[in-house]
């Protein structure tokens, strides 16, 4: 768990972070979003003390990070940056092994861990273990960057716009992989981005920052349906609001469980905008749904996309934004 209590950071006369308080729960995927200069990266870099806080307290699992040695603190966290920052004179293997090496893991364990991570990030260990960073594409480099950050099984992963320099296709596949890794490992992730689609797609919760202050911290659905300020509304954007709205819920949330229908089924975790696309593509208004183990989990109707059949928790329109 990460706690910020009235944390302030000034650079000269400029207040980059202004009395910010929030909590990130164990295992949560928290996205920090905001325009440039909003203080989101500063917040991230205060968590591993790359930037020291001027006022307030930052606690990890109840422990004030100011009481820890910065190097020890950082070795317990993964850190991924936009420009990757792989060590160009080290092989992929040695790059990934950096923190385990610092922690003094035995050689065999490091080796196995490197293999495991390369497979996790869809890089063939035999081919890439001995490669040098300049021999890799941008997407592969960031895969290694993520693997390196995960190497010592950190409880917390800090990511500063890790995918924003990548092409859309590579970015999408890395987002999918990161979601899967998060589900599998239960690592607490703090993820900085300026891309609302990425935030809606990845975050369990989204913290919106502006001028060093925390404007809103809520679930993607809440951000979409009840934006707390004009800035949040602008970040969400009015274009394709409905599709974004669909994207934050899954087929499993809306399927009618008792029904069944024939056809190629959709997985329950498929986002709803994909289901809509699938219906248009197949020319049908009903799709069968299966759960994670491939067992039938009901049927999704076209009308369920517009309005939840059983009256879900969420409101159905952008009432607060007034764009319906």
């Amino acid at each position, binding site marked *: 768990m990460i706690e910020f209590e009235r944390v302030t950071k000034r650079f000269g006369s400029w207040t980059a972070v202004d009395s910010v308080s929030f909590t990130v729960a164990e295992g949560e995927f928290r996205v920090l979003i905001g325009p440039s200069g909003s203080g989101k990266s500063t917040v991230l870099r205060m968590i591993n003390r790359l930037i020291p806080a001027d006022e307030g307290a930052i606690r990890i699992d109840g422990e004030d990070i100011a009481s820890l040695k910065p190097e020890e603190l950082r070795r317990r966290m993964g850190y991924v940056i936009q420009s990757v920052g792989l060590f160009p004179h080290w092989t992929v293997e040695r790059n990934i092994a950096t923190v385990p090496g610092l922690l003094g893991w035995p050689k065999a364990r490091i080796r196995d861990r490197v293999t495991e991570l390369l497979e996790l990030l869809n890089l063939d260990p035999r081919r890439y273990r001995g490669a040098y*960073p300049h021999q890799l594409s941008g997407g592969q480099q960031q895969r290694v960057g993520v693997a390196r950050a995960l190497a010592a099984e950190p409880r917390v992963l800090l990511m500063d716009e890790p995918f924003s320099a990548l092409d859309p296709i590579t970015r999408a596949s890395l987002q999918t992989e990161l979601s899967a890794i998060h589900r599998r490992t239960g690592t607490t992730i703090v993820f900085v981005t300026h891309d609302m689609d990425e935030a809606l797609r990845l975050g369990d919760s989204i913290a919106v920052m502006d001028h060093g202050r925390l404007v809103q911290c809520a679930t993607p659905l809440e951000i979409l349906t009840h934006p707390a300020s004009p800035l949040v509304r602008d970040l969400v954007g009015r274009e394709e609001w409905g599709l974004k709205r669909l994207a934050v819920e899954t087929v499993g949330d809306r399927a009618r469980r008792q029904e069944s229908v024939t056809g190629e089924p959709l997985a329950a975790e498929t986002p709803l905008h994909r289901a809509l696309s699938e219906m248009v593509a197949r020319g049908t208004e009903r799709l069968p749904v299966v759960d994670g183990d491939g067992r039938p989990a009901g049927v999704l109707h076209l009308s369920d996309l517009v309005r939840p059949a059983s009256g879900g928790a969420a409101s159905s329109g952008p009432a607060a934004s007034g764009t319906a």
Partner: protein
Amino acid sequence: MTDRLPLHNRVALLMALAVAVAALALPFLGFAPNRLLSGRPVPLWPALQGLDGVAVLLPGLVLLTAPFLRPTRAGLGLTIAAGGLFTTGLVWLAGAQAASLAQGASAAARTSFASGFWVMAAAGLLTAIDAARRLGLGAVGRLAVGGAVAGLVALQLASGHLDALSILKEYANRREVFADAVLRHATLVVAALIPTLLVGIPLGVAAHRVQAVGRAVFPVLNVVQTVPSIALFGLLMAPLAALGALLPGSGISGVGPLPAVIALTLYSLLPIVRNTAVGLDGVPSPVREAARGMGLTPRQVFLRVDLPLALPVFLSGLRITVVQAVGLAAVAALIGAGGLGAIMFQGLFANALDLVLLGAVPVILLAVAADALLSIGIAAATHRIGVLPGRSAP
């Protein structure tokens, strides 16, 4: 004129023309009854007629066709071989000529290289160097070619084939002095290099970290570089002599090796300090940030990230320093520091050009050897890193 010879290599053409002109119009060797008299010219043409002439004729003919060879691996390889063998062949022919001229002449008679030899030897080497560059030969490949040429000359030296040449007669008279001079020369360079590195590396690190240090240090070092070496040696004489008078028995004096080492150190500092700072400046900041973010201590960041990534640029500074120091150490002979410069100046003052050569050639060889070895080091330090910004020093 559509069916004229296809010209592929302008450099080789220029060199082939130089060879042709030198062979026809310039004296190959000079033969004098003793070392003080000027010699009569010995042309190349008659010398080519004997069996020894084949060593020059064969590669020479290839060299004349080199401008028209296609720039393939085979064509460029042949050009390199022809250029190298042509030069070593000239040495061989000169040795043979000198031996035959020595027959029936007095022991004081001298056979020296003349302008034709120098022009042709230089043209042969330049053709080979240019072809090696066109072939994209790496540091190791260039060293292998250079080593082969040097080896062929060394074999001729060792076999005694060149003993009749004037420069080797000068050597025979000064065998022990020569060995001492080479050792002394190398010692001067190393003795200057140690304080240079001890002071220069920390100064370079400081200039990289604190801008004010760089602003203070670089103008001073730049000014030192512009002071002519003889003037700097001279400037150091007075204070050191005064210091020596103050501390009798300390061995400090205004002449000899000490002012030479101090002056060499002052000259050597600029490339070392500058390239240390530039190399560190060139380490990409994301790499450094990632290293810190993963929990490397400042010391570990410096040793594991900064140092290896700055190494290629640092080594190219070291290369400049060493090559420069080898040359400058020759001038240090003027203030009594000894070394190969002493032999050169002895020759200059005695108007014995071969004695000058006996001092100058090893200086050149030392510089070339240091340059080649450090080039290999730079290539080894660079090849893993790929392309880094700020690789080349200003």
